[in-house]
């Protein structure tokens, strides 16, 4: 066991990325992820890495694309408005089948929105965001420890499947201080990357990093191939936490900060004798459909707790094939549901049908 240190979520991401071998960071200032960039600016020059404050998020993500083409670990971080600007580059990275890590420490929107925590970029992260047929691997931490662990995991998954990954956090997770143990995070063995552009040395045919296919049959084939890989990811990489679900009549579904709030509410409801449990998706894509589908045969209903107008709720309905009612318990615009609000929702569902 390593030693625990007290860290802010944003800093934990940065330190975890460095320990996982990331030596290239490109960003543009935005609240509430500033500490992450500041940490990188301090550390990277000391360890022979690259920290570059780009002229915009558009430029930053395209710098990421450049490094990703060389096969080296690379990341960028931002918050909602900045992540909107990155969508062009994300689509190109996905289209060129490159690994990269994008961090979104979400804040309220739309537009300039606010600077308080939010989960309203769920659709953008999990359903596309940029143009074209593609997916991101999306991981949602709900503690500072997970901010670190999932950062390392995101790099690994992204490289394993050649699919860009996104860590979808929020302002509370970024600012929150908790003890973390980073001793488990290390750089993986260097793998061969025969596709990388590092110079032909005049010994091989040139490599091309590209997403342009003017022949539609070829582009269709490329998309088919990518979706075959997505299928494997959906089969093998779903992560979720199941809490008090064994005998549950009601299933709360929540991720990130909403899951922490919901857990408190579940514990409080149990004290009142209500059989309620929580399923916390850790991967938002692939979405953990199986445990929700199983729960749908046992529980009387689902409560989707979100810091948005209700986005994940659509995936809950799809996963459960609307077999049971799914209700929304939410705040938005930078507000966070309280445990009492979630508890009230649970009580209401418990009362129904009695």
């Amino acid at each position, binding site marked *: 066991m390593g030693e625990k240190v007290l860290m802010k979520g944003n800093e934990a991401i940065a330190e975890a990325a460095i320990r996982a071998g990331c030596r290239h960071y490109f960003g543009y200032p935005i609240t509430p992820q500033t500490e992450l960039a500041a940490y990188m600016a301090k550390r990277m020059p000391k360890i022979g890495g690259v920290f570059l404050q*780009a002229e915009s998020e558009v*430029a*930053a993500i395209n710098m990421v694309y*450049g490094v990703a083409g*060389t096969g080296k670990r690379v990341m960028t971080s931002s918050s909602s408005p900045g992540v909107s600007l990155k969508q062009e580059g994300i689509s190109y990275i996905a289209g060129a089948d490159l690994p990269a890590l994008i961090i979104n420490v979400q804040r309220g929107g739309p537009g300039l929105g606010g600077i308080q925590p939010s989960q309203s970029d769920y659709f953008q992260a999990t359903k596309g965001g940029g143009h074209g047929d593609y997916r991101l691997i999306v991981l949602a931490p709900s503690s500072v420890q997970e901010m670190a662990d999932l950062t390392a995991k995101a790099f690994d998954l992204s490289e394993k499947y050649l699919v860009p990954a996104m860590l979808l956090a929020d302002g509370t997770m970024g600012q929150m201080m908790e003890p973390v143990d980073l001793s488990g995070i290390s750089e993986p063995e260097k793998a061969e990357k025969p596709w990388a*552009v590092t*110079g032909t040395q005049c010994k091989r045919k040139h490599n*091309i990093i590209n997403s342009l296919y003017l022949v539609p049959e070829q582009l269709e084939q490329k998309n088919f191939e990518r979706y075959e890989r997505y299928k494997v990811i959906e089969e093998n990489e779903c992560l979720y936490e199941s809490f008090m679900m064994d005998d549950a009549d009601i299933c709360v579904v929540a991720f990130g900060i909403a899951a922490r709030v919901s857990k408190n509410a579940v514990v409080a409801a149990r004290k009142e004798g209500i059989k309620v449990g929580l399923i916390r998706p850790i991967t938002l894509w692939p979405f953990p459909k199986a445990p929700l589908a199983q729960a749908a045969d046992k529980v009387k209903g689902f409560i989707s707790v979100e810091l948005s107008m209700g986005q994940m709720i659509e995936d809950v309905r799809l996963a459960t094939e609307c077999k049971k009612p799914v209700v929304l318990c939410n705040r938005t615009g930078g507000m966070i549901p309280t445990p009492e609000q979630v508890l009230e929702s649970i009580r209401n569902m418990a009362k129904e049908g009695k």
Partner: protein
Amino acid sequence: MAIVFQKPKALTDAPLHYCPGCTHGIIHRLVAEAIDELGIEGKTVGVAPVGCAVMAYDYFACDMVEAAHGRAPAVATGLKRALPENIVFTYQGDGDLASIGMAETVHAATRGENITIIFVNNAIYGMTGGQMAPTSLPGQVTQTSPYGRDTATAGFPIRVSEMLATLDGPQYIERVAVNNVKNVNKAKKAIKKAFQNQVEGKGFSLIEVVSSCPTNWGMTPSKALQWVEEKMIPYYPLGVYKDRSAEKEGK
């Protein structure tokens, strides 16, 4: 038998798709010759733009990356920061470099990124069928300035070389043309120097090449070259706009 003319090694065998009489082909050749002569093909990574040169990744024999419209300097920045020992260049049109990608261009220049940019100024958007470019001349008729570019509403053409030369970051900026043999030879020298600078770690070099687009200018290739001489070059004077090594020597 002495070979007097052959394809540069740094070009592949893929047939170029450019229109007859288009000077993109000459510029490709000059870039490839510079790469050959400096012996850097094996460590060069090129960045293709969005524009008529989008397929440049098939034509240059070195490793290549296709960038989003205008983002080539940012992509090249990432490449060069990850591969400081390699040679990184971009090849971009005027819409790509001076309109949608202006921020990326100016900031790569001001950071003094040790990269080489080949900027092809043909005063029009070729690929999309001849719309007004930031470099289209006042009065120039294009698909989106059908009554001629009206500077009152569409503003004035941007002289990229002059503008970038005001920055402290760049090492070398020169504007050349490829409308006659004499100018082609000068362009060749400038392009080679722009790569040589990078080999020597001197920093940002940009060569603006005044080019032609006979197809969208609606001219024969020879008439287009005449238009370059009579209209383009007077607005875009050829010459060195910045050369830090010469500044030093001069002192």
